[in-house]
């Protein structure tokens, strides 16, 4: 899909209800349940093998850039808004994008020597997403929690979240993506329904890459 260039300011780009997003074309991405057999521990597999989870079926993705920033608008159905994290059983809703950092990086959390970059938004921190890097299941480490701005809205049983970042970071840490005009890159997605106690590998994810091309 084309990350089309629009000449709007950061406020317009960041607003999930903004006119630029209404005008943008979206891609419907199919999601599947992350299989119980793929869970990294026996406890998690035993607990969830017969329970429904990862039932979010689709995610609508839109992507735009302006002169200095790239933004993704992610929208999915989730009837219950879970943003609290006070009770021990509170798990906030979340969404993530995953970008390969090497040609061979596996789609599921990367692998050794084949890392992935993660943009992870969670409803208890609605105004920012975390930038993580991972080289396999259970290895994600936070790079920073400042560079990706977020704006989120839950209405009519749907989340709409815009993630927005500078195309280029001035002092990029290892594992940070840098974007430029004409660049082609791949991404994929995951969604967690906090109301169903979903976290970690208990999620819905897209099993195929979505190719992005940055407008000049």
């Amino acid at each position: 899909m084309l990350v089309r260039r629009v000449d709007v300011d950061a406020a317009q780009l960041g607003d999930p209800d903004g006119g630029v997003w209404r005008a943008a074309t979206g891609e419907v991405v199919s999601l599947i349940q992350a299989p119980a057999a793929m869970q990294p521990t026996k406890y998690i597999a035993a607990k969830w093998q017969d329970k429904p989870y990862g039932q979010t079926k689709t995610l609508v993705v839109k992507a735009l850039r302006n002169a200095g920033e790239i933004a993704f608008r992610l929208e999915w159905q989730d009837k219950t808004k879970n943003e609290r994290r006070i009770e021990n059983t509170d798990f906030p809703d979340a969404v993530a994008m995953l970008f390969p950092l090497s040609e061979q990086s596996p789609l599921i959390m990367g692998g050794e020597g084949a890392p992935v970059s993660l943009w992870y938004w969670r409803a208890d921190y609605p105004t920012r997403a975390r930038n993580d890097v991972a080289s396999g299941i259970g290895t994600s480490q936070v790079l920073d929690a400042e560079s990706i701005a977020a704006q989120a809205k839950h209405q009519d049983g749907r989340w709409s979240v815009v993630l927005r970042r500078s195309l280029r970071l001035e002092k990029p840490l290892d594992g940070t993506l840098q974007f430029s005009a004409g660049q082609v890159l791949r991404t994929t997605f995951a969604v967690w329904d906090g109301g169903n106690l979903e976290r970690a590998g208990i999620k819905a994810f897209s099993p195929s890459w979505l190719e992005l091309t940055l407008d000049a």
Partner: protein
Amino acid sequence: MNEKNVVGRELAGTLNKPNRQLAMVFDLNKCLGCHTCSISCKRQWTREEGMEQQWWAVVNTQPGLGTPKNWEDIGGGWDAKGEPRPSKIPTRDEFGDAWKFNNDEVFHGGKGKVTYLKPVTTKGEAPDWGPNWDEDEGGGEYPNSHFFYLPRICNHCTHPACLEACPRGAIYKRADDGIVLINDKQCKGFRFCMEACPYKRIYYNHVRDVGQKCIFCFPRVEKGVAPACARQCPGRLRFVGYLDDENGPIHKLVHKWKVALPLHQEYGTQPNVYYVPPISPPSVDMNGRVDPSRPRIPQDYLEGLFGPRVKEVLALLEAEKAKKSKGQPSELMDLLIVYKWPNDIFPDFVRDPAEL
């Protein structure tokens, strides 16, 4: 997964054990239920924001529902085939929340004569459970009512269910002393450990978004100081030492005299806190006649907690007690009496923390 932390994990059918294991023995015949252990732990480790509701060392009244409520009935640990038993995350209310009180209203609002102190939970509700809600209720019918105290901490298990449940390898068992710790830089607050622990001794810190639990006071232990709960215990019932130290009280009570038993051994995690079971008072009838042949605490209840060797252990304790009262020597009674504190109760950890 962080494959570096192999101690405490079962890999290719083999359980990787530490080089040495620190353990505790609690003599339940000496516990007076004063909660000094809980308070000393609280003051040492769990005073920060987000830890208000955490009690790494608790003392439950038995029979009772415990901390968290009904913890014995919600699974976790390993089944007879060594497979994980699914469980659930206990809620703050089930653990017993840190209540807030209307201090301002009562003490400073001029209403001291018309209202009274009322607790509310984090959710703003009137509590109907607490960390020690059923204290001293116990079981049995008058005149055979009975209870005893059961102090509980993290068991620093030989096969910790928490450690294997964590998808991030954030929990590790130290190779040189078997202490089980959560690496809070690696922990992401997923709380699978809270489910998998069958003793439900892990708490969630909602401020820092991590799991937290008893650390066997490892910074003290490393300096030769006993854990706070053990050193402060007025009843002097908490023995501390290495399981393989044949000259130490732990080895003698667990392996030589075999009077210290694990709690709920059937959970399969091989806990490293052991209990000398409580000697029961005898039954009495309504006329006050004592029947020494019938213990007031039902034996099957004790066996439900400490396993099938309870009867044998209680008989041995009675026999050795009888010897001692006749003036005959009894190594076991001398061990349990703890003549010389602290040398007899935690010989490797006698240093006074005030002198550090």
